[in-house]
Structures are given as structure tokens and as C-alpha cells.
């Protein structure tokens, strides 16, 4: 039970008095702020982080272009947020669980998801782990401890609390990180998740990417408070706000959060202040709700350039290395994209599998009827007909129109 001091005047406290500082280590020119300690980040790990950032950026640029060419139905970029996502993922054990929202391809890249694996999901082909059921960018990997993305926002946040509680009981010394946007933090699921985590002392890191916008809604229309961070106090939870474009600050803060979560069973909230430089998705046009000038200000705070300057200061990176990495990755993306595009769609039977552990008699009947129908009209269902009789539908048809 909580005991409080007594007062005898009606004095109200107000959220206005609340403001939380932002932790920063690395300045834009690659130097360290005075009084800031450099985190313990060795060369190999630093380069692994940087490499993942470039992988993510190259993938995003290329796939948005592919979407514009009509080769892909939909895409979402993480441009501008690479340090927030990759810096936090890098501070974890590679076996810790990641529950992401949808803009965290950087964390997957860091864990070693290959271009082929990305592409198979993006094109929903027969090699897609999700069997072509979800829109592009809904990745998942059991091997890399990355829970498959679900589109309904914030649903993963209380699940992360539960997953982490299970990890605690299993005693493996692992934790869960859950990513979400400042928009998703308005959902009831967010509040339920923090409360349960605090009460049940789950080793979970709540990582809010506060990138300023939820589609067109600016954060000032999302909440009246000083961001998302102050909410942690209401649940009696540890919290830190970091410069989300500062790789060293994000890395160090998440490292410390992991210690609190795993050693002390204290859930932690991290609010990373960053900016969604790209459109919300390939179906969105931000010129309808924000100015180019505002975007330019943030372009100057590019997290990748900032990290590169630091690496150069340390003598760990130079122009030649940059050039050859970029060229190699660009070629690799194109090559894997072509491969993934050519792969056939998942077989027709995949329509009814995984609904239950076993296909029920009703589903089997429905599938049989569908097969009968497609055999009568193979030309109308080239994808389905292909797995019934590969000769029937040799020509590819792509009639996607784009989603949200």
C-alpha cells in the first residue's frame, strides 16, 4: 500500500510541471558532448551496427523505388530512425525477444535477416515464412527471436509483458524489447501493458519511437503531456528519454535498461526522440500535412551521418570502405529482388493451413470445392491454378493495386 504525506490546503499538482531531459552523447559532428561518457562499444560491434544501418537504408530506398515502379504493392521505410532501432537492438543479447510494430527492419537486419529473407516476405512468394498472408513488411523470424508483426497497433505491447514474465519464470536471463510509435502509445493496450509489467515485475523494455507523427497526426494532437515518458511514473516504472538519432546514447541507455530488466526484474520505458523522415508508407504523401522545411531540419540530424563521423574520428571507417559497401549492397538488393519476384506464390493448399493445427473437415471441403472451381476457370486464377497444374498458368500476373 502507498502512504502519502498529508496536506491541509487544496493544492493541485499539474502535469505542466513535468519535463524530462533528453540523454545525448554524440554531437552531429561526431564528437562527444562535454561530460558524456563514451559507451563501451568495440570496433567490431560498432561496424556491425553501422553496416546494419546502411543495409536498412539501401533496402528502404530500393524497395520504395520498386513500389513506385509497381513491382511491389506496398512499403514502409525506417529512414531517420535507424539509430533508435539498431542502437537498441545492438544493446541486447541476440537471444532476447523482439516484438516490433512494423518500422523496425533495422533490428532484423542487425540480427542477420538476409536480403533474400526480406524479399521473400515483401513479395509474398512461396519462400515467405508468413506464406503470403500478410502485407509487405510484416516480417517474422523464429530463428532470430523476432515475433511476426501484427497490423493492429499496440497489441504486441501487453503480449511483450507476458512473454517477458515467461522468460523470468524460465530463468534464462533473457528479456523482451517491444517497439511502438508515440501514436500507438495512446491505445489502451499500452497502458495495460505497463501496469501489468510494473505489478508483476516483468523483464521488459518498452521502447517508444517518438518520431513526431502518427500518419498525419502530429504528436501535439496525440497527447498534451511532455511526450510519452512521464507516464512511467504513474506506474512506478524506470524511464529514460534519449536522443533517438544518437547511436551512442541509445545504445548505452538500452544496455542499462537491460541490466535493470534482467538483473533487477524492473521493467523500463525508453522514449527515443526522433523523426520519421519518410512518408508514413508508400501510400502516404506527407506534403499534405507538414512542410519541407521541417523535414530539412531533421535531414541535417541524419543518424547515419552522425555515426559515420564518429567512426571516422576513431579511424574505423573511410570513404573507400563506404563506397564499396554501398555498391556491394545495392547490387545485392537488386539481385535478390529479381530472384524473389520470380518465385511462385504459395501453393493453393496454404489458404487453409495454419488456421488450426490440423485442417478441419469443413476447411478441407471448402478447399476441394475451390479446386473444382479453379479447374473449371484456370485462366481467372493464375496464381491458384499454378499449384494445381503448373502448365496451366505459366505467365505471371501481378494485379496488385496497393493497400493502405
Amino acid at each position, binding site marked *: 500500500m502507498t502512504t502519502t504525506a498529508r496536506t491541509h490546503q487544496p493544492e493541485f499538482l499539474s502535469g505542466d510541471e513535468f519535463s524530462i531531459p533528453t540523454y545525448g552523447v554524440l554531437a552531429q559532428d561526431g564528437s562527444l558532448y562535454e561530460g558524456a561518457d563514451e559507451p563501451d562499444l568495440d570496433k567490431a560491434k560498432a561496424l556491425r551496427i553501422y553496416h546494419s544501418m546502411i543495409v536498412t537504408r539501401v533496402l528502404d530506398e530500393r524497395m520504395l523505388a520498386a513500389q513506385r515502379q509497381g513491382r511491389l504493392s506496398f512499403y514502409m521505410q525506417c529512414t531517420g530512425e535507424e539509430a533508435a532501432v539498431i542502437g537498441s537492438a545492438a544493446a541486447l543479447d541476440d537471444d532476447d525477444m523482439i516484438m516490433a510494430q512494423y518500422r523496425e527492419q533495422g533490428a532484423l537486419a542487425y540480427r542477420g535477416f538476409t536480403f533474400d529473407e526480406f524479399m521473400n516476405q515483401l513479395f509474398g512468394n512461396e519462400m515467405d515464412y508468413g506464406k503470403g498472408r500478410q502485407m509487405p513488411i510484416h516480417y517474422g523470424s523464429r530463428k532470430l527471436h523476432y515475433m511476426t508483426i501484427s497490423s*493492429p497497433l499496440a497489441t504486441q505491447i501487453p503480449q511483450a509483458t507476458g512473454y517477458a514474465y515467461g522468460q523470468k519464470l524460465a530463468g534464462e536471463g533473457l528479456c523482451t524489447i517491444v517497439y511502438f510509435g508515440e501514436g500507438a502509445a495512446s491505445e489502451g493496450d499500452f497502458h495495460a501493458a505497463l501496469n501489468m509489467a510494473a505489478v508483476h515485475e516483468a523483464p521488459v523494455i518498452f521502447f517508444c519511437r517518438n518520431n513526431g507523427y502518427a500518419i498525419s497526426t502530429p504528436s501535439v494532437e496525440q497527447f498534451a503531456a511532455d511526450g510519452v515518458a512521464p507516464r512511467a511514473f504513474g506506474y512506478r516504472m524506470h524511464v529514460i528519454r534519449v536522443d533517438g538519432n544518437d547511436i551512442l546514447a541509445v545504445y548505452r541507455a538500452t544496455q542499462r535498461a537491460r541490466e535493470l530488466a534482467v538483473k533487477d526484474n524492473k521493467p523500463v520505458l525508453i522514449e527515443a526522440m526522433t523523426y520519421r523522415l519518410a512518408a508514413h508508407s508508400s501510400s502516404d504523401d506527407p506534403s499534405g500535412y507538414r512542410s519541407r522545411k521541417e523535414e530539412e531540419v531533421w535531414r541535417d540530424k541524419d543518424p547515419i551521418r552522425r555515426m559515420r563521423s564518429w567512426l571516422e574520428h576513431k579511424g574505423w571507417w573511410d570513404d573507400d570502405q563506404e563506397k564499396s559497401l554501398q555498391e556491394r549492397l545495392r547490387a545485392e538488393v537488386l539481385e535478390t529482388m529479381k530472384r524473389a519476384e520470380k518465385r511462385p506464390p504459395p501453393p493453393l493448399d496454404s*489458404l487453409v493451413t495454419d488456421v488450426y493445427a490440423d485442417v478441419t473437415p469443413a476447411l478441407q471441403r471448402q478447399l476441394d470445392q475451390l479446386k473444382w472451381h479453379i479447374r473449371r476457370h484456370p485462366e481467372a486464377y493464375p496464381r491458384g491454378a499454378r499449384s494445381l497444374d503448373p502448365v496451366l498458368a505459366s505467365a505471371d500476373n501481378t494485379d496488385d493495386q496497393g493497400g493502405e
Partner: protein
Amino acid sequence: MATINMLQAINQALDIAMAEDERVLCFGEDVGSFGGVFRATSHLQEKYGKARCFNTPLVEQGIVGFANGLAAQGSVPVAEIQFADYIFPAFDQIVNETAKFRYRSGDLFNVGGLTIRAPYGGGISGGHYHSQSPEAYFAHTPGIKIVVPRNPYEAKGLLLASIRDPDPVLFFEPKRLYRAAVGEVPEEDYQLPIGEAEVTKEGSDITLVGWGAQMEVIDKAVELAEKEGISCEVIDLRSILPWDEDTIAESVLKTGRLVITHEAPRTGGFAAEISAAIQERCFLYLESPIERVTGLDTPFPLTLEKEYLPDHLKILEAIRASVNF
């Protein structure tokens, strides 16, 4: 009469309702200055101000709970849920609160002014979570009305009727048709009846019933069937709850055959309710079993969407099966 698309028709309806009655408010995620992700609320904030048309925080249970409170107070909220797939976080507010306000208070309070708009349905490569048709979940709940328009003319007239209806209304908009369905729509104010189905084409051999985006698909199937000499009667149900049993029963008494189609999964879909009721009323007049053409009993897929969806060919085969029974 101007030729406009369904989004423009919906925008016109909202504009008319807001101009006429200052208690009408429009809100939801991205609804404010941006005009909604589909642009159904474009320019309304400019015209009526931020107090009457605004962005909400991203929380559907909050949006509907807030709307329930507003409506109980006497305002006329038109809340937008960005996609019907995301109406479920608000399920409790709709099913336990919206639907039961009047009943549980003995009519001391009601939320009759409330309209909830949500884009529903597939055919846009939206995959699992941008394609669902959730009408049947709500049809199991007495106390709300459920309306689905099939074209711009219907959308405007039915939305205006929904906003002015004395009961809360869920208004599901077929998003595949938002820009694809274009038609003549009068600029002035008009309403279409809620709870009445419409016979959109008369015929004598078989009755086809659907709603929303399926109506276009039915028309395509009917064209093919008529080439085979089958005379089809087509009915747009328009209101899922309450639904117009009489119009369908009358038609089936004449044709003796019925095919019902919807995109949602078969089991527990609204076609099941229609076929049970019609079978009770028309048993001795039926020449063949009532056919249902529906989505599979699975979640909505992406790559194999075309295979999953009930289309004109599947409806045509059902018509043939019914006629040749």
C-alpha cells in the same frame, strides 16, 4: 446531376449534415486537417473549425467511448474508425454500451445520434488486416443498426439517413469502391430508408442477395447468367440490421431459388441468418437448396486474395448449380 465517386458522396453527406445541424461532429484518426487517410472528411475542418472536426489520439476504444458520451449528451457524433479491421479495440464500447444504452436505462438515456463509419472489405491487396468484413459480429447485437452502401448515390442518401436516425448506426463503406464506383448524385439533401432492401433488377428464375461491394460482382455474374437464358432478380440488402425479410421472402416466393453472397467467412456469416429465415418462410416454394457464396472459413489472405474472394465466376457457378439442381 454531377458525376462523383463514393468518397465525394460521403464527403457531401457529412458537409450537408454539419451545415444543417451544429451538433454534428466528425472525428477520428487523421480526420482533421488531413481529411482522413482516404480523404472522406476533406475540407470539413476548414469549413466548420477544429472544435467540430478533429484528429483524435490513436485509440479506438477511446474514440467510440467518447462518441457514446457525446451522443448521450445530445450531440451528433460521426466517428471514423480508420479501417473496419481496427474496430475491434472498440468492440466492448459498441456491443456493451452503444447497443444497450437505451435499453438498460429504460430510455432515460440513449446514444441515437451516433454514427460510426468504417471502410471494410477486400480486393485492394490489403492482406490479413486491411480486408475484413466484420458485419456479422455486430449483427448478433440488438440495439445497433448496420448499413452498407453499394454506390455513391446510396452512400450519400444512406449516410444522411444514418446520421439522422434515432438509433446508433454502424456504417460500413466498401473501400474497394471508394474511387472505383462513380455515378450521378444529386447535390441537394436526400435520404434513403434504413431497414429496407432494394430490388435493383427484376427477374423470374432466381433471386440474388448481397450488399456493398458484392453488388457489383453480382451484376457481373447476372450478365453472364442471363446470356445462358437464366432470368435473375437482384436485391441489395442495404441494411444488415434490421434486415428486410419481407422483400427477400417475396422475391423467393416468386423465383423459388436464392443465392446469397458476402466476402466474410461462411460460418456464422450473415448469409446463414438470411438462409435460415427464408427457409422458414419459403420452404415449400424452394426449388433447390439456398446457396451461399462466401469467403473461406479462414483469415483473409494476401497473395491468394483472388482465389479467396467470392467473385462473379463463383456466383455464376452457384446460379447454375441452383438452376440445375
